[in-house]
């Protein structure tokens, strides 16, 4: 009787070879399912690319926080543009709102609204 003199490593590699030599049967439907998924993802990608700028803009507004945020954003944008272009002198109306006749009445060089004198 011939004694088996293979090393454990050699024996183990026989097992690995056995595992590699027989591959599991692949269901032919699997490839079709995978390619169907690929088509679905493709269509989604195409529809995303084909969206008009208006749809993207609507999405942007939605992300901004809906109608109230959009209105506030638009108002502040218009105000900013108006102030930027026309630089209106609003010192008098603002002064009347806070009961000061003129900004010139305020002495900016002295104590702040004479508050220092309280202490």
């Amino acid at each position: 009787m011939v004694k088996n003199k293979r090393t454990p490593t050699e024996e183990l590699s026989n097992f690995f070879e056995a595992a590699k030599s027989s591959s599991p049967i692949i269901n032919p439907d699997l490839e079709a399912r995978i390619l169907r998924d690929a088509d679905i993802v493709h269509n989604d990608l195409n529809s995303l690319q084909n969206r008009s700028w208006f749809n993207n803009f609507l999405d942007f507004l939605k992300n901004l926080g809906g109608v109230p945020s959009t209105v506030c954003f638009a108002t502040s944008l218009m105000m900013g543009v108006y102030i930027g272009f026309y630089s209106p002198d609003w010192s008098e109306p603002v002064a009347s709102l806070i009961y000061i006749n003129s900004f010139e009445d305020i002495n900016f060089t002295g104590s702040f609204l004479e508050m220092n004198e309280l202490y």
Partner: protein
Amino acid sequence: MFNSLRKKNADHALMAAFADGDRRAAQQLTEQLMPKIYAHAYYRLGNTSDAEDVTQEAFLKLWKVAPNWKQDKAEVSTWLYRVVSNLCKDRYRRTTLEGTASMQEPIDESTSPTSGLEEQYRQKALYTAMSVLPESQRLAVQLRHIDELTNPQIAEIMDLSIEAVESLTARGKRKLSKILQTQKSELGYNYG
């Protein structure tokens, strides 16, 4: 090395083509990678339906990631192995909890016509022994010796250093040898 680099670039090109709307790129990637990925999933999970689901899910993730695929990323196959490996881990945990993990035998015998039965014995013995190994050792051994990936690829898949992979593989193999030696006498056949 040159071949693997060329293959990597080819796979990247296929991913880019798919993202640009080329359906044939998807088909080519599927034909190239699906058998390996499916086999890996099958030998990890032990049943065809789970392996199919996991393979399909991994490829779906691949299609979704295609538009943002970067050239400097890993090889497509390595990326897929990583995904499928994680999916198998989740699935395996679930099936183990449900107690349904059992190996079916839908093996393609046409690839080993000469010694089909002995090969099947060896294969069954190997997977039974591997199921005893800790998860990380089992994965490292499978990726290295059955899926035939390189240590750097395995390190990338398992998120470990190359040295850690080498150590895991070596320990796994030592343990496998021991288990198979005991099985040898228990099963009563000489597989050496």
